[in-house]
């Protein structure tokens, strides 16, 4: 029995770690709420590069003429980011025109105007996508494997989404459609990861029919460990190079990076232990019903 990592046996450690992260996350979400991005709540964002150093109060005075309720942020000396609750297109172009008149070298780097209705719709649709994707995978795994694997996979998927949400809630990063796309990618990828382990469990059970689920699971996790880690390593390599070199896609590469690492962790430390728990529970039930009849 040498050389097997007792990962499933030590499941309480992993469950506790995850539980702590998720509880902190849910607590933060309950008290402070989640930060929604522009496309989830609607509104206006304008980013202007003024070309020179400037006095923020001067620019704020220009904006005040058009909006009574706005936030502005000075970024890297020359840029200003203006956020407001839904301005009309005329107001937006008025702001830009006036800023340009005052600061000759300025140019708009990014501008977005999203109606509140669209924001709500995007939010609802995103949630819909998450639910449909998870349900579709449950059905597929249920057919290809068996119910217990499907359940375990869903537990690990929900775990991943919750951990990602928790990280975002604690770090106060806003949640928008980029986040949802990232979450779905992570779901797709971590299930990819998990299935390889499950596939091994399915195979090993043929050789060791009478063995306890824990032993089968630990053997399978050990056998696939090199592959699990190498695979995630390759994805982490490509994503990290994007993360470092292309700052403007960080909204995207960051959640995927967090999610892929979470997904790797969960496919090793959460999915298989969950399967063991479900399988054991089912075996116990099976025994009981046999005793009764």
């Amino acid at each position, binding site marked *: 029995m040498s050389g097997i990592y007792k990962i499933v046996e030590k499941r309480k450690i992993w469950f506790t770690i995850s539980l702590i992260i998720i509880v902190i996350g849910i607590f933060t979400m309950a008290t402070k709420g989640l930060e929604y991005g522009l496309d989830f709540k609607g509104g206006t964002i304008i980013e202007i590069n003024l070309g020179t150093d400037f006095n923020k109060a001067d620019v704020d005075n220009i904006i005040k003429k058009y909006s009574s309720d706005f936030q502005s942020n000075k970024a890297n000396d020359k840029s200003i980011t203006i956020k407001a609750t839904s301005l009309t297109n005329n107001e*937006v172009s008025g702001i830009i025109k006036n800023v340009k008149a005052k600061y000759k070298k300025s140019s708009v780097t*990014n*501008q977005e105007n999203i109606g509140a209705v669209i924001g709500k719709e995007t939010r609802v649709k995103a949630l819909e996508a998450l639910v449909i*994707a998870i349900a*579709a995978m449950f059905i597929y795994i249920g057919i290809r494997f068996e119910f217990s694997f499907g359940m375990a996979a869903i537990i690990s998927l929900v775990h991943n989404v919750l951990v990602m949400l928790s990280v975002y809630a604690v770090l106060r990063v806003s949640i928008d*459609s980029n986040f949802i796309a990232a979450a779905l990618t992570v779901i797709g990828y971590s299930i990819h990861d998990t*299935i390889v382990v499950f596939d091994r469990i399915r195979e090993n059970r043929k050789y060791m029919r009478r063995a306890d689920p824990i032993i089968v699971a630990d053997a399978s996790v050990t*056998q696939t460990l090199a592959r699990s880690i190498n695979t995630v390593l*390759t994805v982490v390599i490509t994503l990290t190079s994007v993360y470092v070199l*292309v700052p403007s896609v960080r909204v995207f590469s960051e959640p995927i990076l967090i999610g892929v690492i979470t997904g790797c962790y969960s496919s090793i430390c959460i999915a298989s232990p969950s399967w063991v728990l479900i399988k054991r529970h089912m075996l116990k039930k099976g025994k009981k019903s046999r005793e009764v009849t």
Partner: protein
Amino acid sequence: MRSKAKTKVKSTIVFFLCVILIGFLAYSGIYGITFGGYKLKPFSEVINRGLDLQGGVSVLEEIQGNNVDQKTMDRTVELLSMRVNKLGVSETVVAREGQKRIRIDIPGKFDAKEVIDGVAKTGELKFVGPDKKTILTGKDVKDATASVDSTNGNQAVINLELNQQGAKKFSNATQKFMGQTIAIYLDNEKLTEPRVDAHITDGRAIISGKNQTLKEAQRQANLIKSGALPVTVKPVQVKTIGASLGSNVLPLSLLAGKIGIGLVMLFMILYYRLPGLIADIALTLYVYLVLLAFATVNVTLTLAGIAAFLLTVGMAVDANILIFERTKEELKSGRTVKASVDAGFRRAMSSILDSNITSIICGFVLYNVGTGSVKGFALTLIIGVVLSMFTAVTVTRTLMKLVANMGWFNNKKTIGTFGVHDFRKGLVK
């Protein structure tokens, strides 16, 4: 023995032919090739770049009112396309999104207001008589141009040429309302309300707005000429991406892609040695095929798409890793190299299939539910996963078999031993 030597020579030749072919494709994809009179353009010139990679204006228009039928929708999209094409920018997108929305992407334009006023207005022209009845609409107009009226204080005006029916209606109206006023509206905004001084029979009318510039008059003339949209549209989402942002992002993402893929390839060689090199050759073909698919299916590459592409590179490598780990286990259990390669593939197949199909399911859900950049991301993901399965299963397999026949795997140095897990490990009864 002779036949074995023969397969060895044959395998060696086929292997190197494959490598040369893949190398040639990769070269043509990066630098382009001129061959005889034909020119194969490099991918950088053929693949469409999305708005976020080159900057521009994106407007999402919503049709007001319910029950928009297919015909009206098609007509609206067609009219909007016509107006967009007049701007003279290439690679514009006018596409339906959902039930009643139309997305207009115009790369290279950075004034959102100009786009909205020039393209995204309904363009409904109305001549209304003093009795509040509509006399003429945009449908009665044959041509509309803008010019400067030198007789009237150099004001910019819109010249209308009415069609036969319009001319007749206008003639009747000018006769009937002589001395009274006719109001002219564009999108329910009153442009002017001139007094009828003469009975106009030649079907020509001039609209002189208040203090408008020639550019503005030109824009309105274009709207009238292209015909009014059959519905009222309203911009619900407007996005401008600055040129500097767009132009910075592309070279950086390309660099990131090159470094990322390069590091992955290096990792594969260091860890798996000769099989790793084979995986890298397969990966090269994979990257080529994905870019080829982008070019042929006309996928617009966005930032999200690049992220998805890099993710699928990871997935393509994963299939190879799965196969190699399995092959190594078989080797450890004492099989011959050829038998191990075969068994490795067979046993890894179910993992590869199941894991990729779930990723494809995820991609389909994203594609159907998502909008805009999410859709592009999903399409890239689906194309990538399907092609990665193909290259991993066929190319890696063929090359592995050829190299096994060549006898190159018999050397411990080429196949490596670290990273091996004993298949029987943990299965002691």
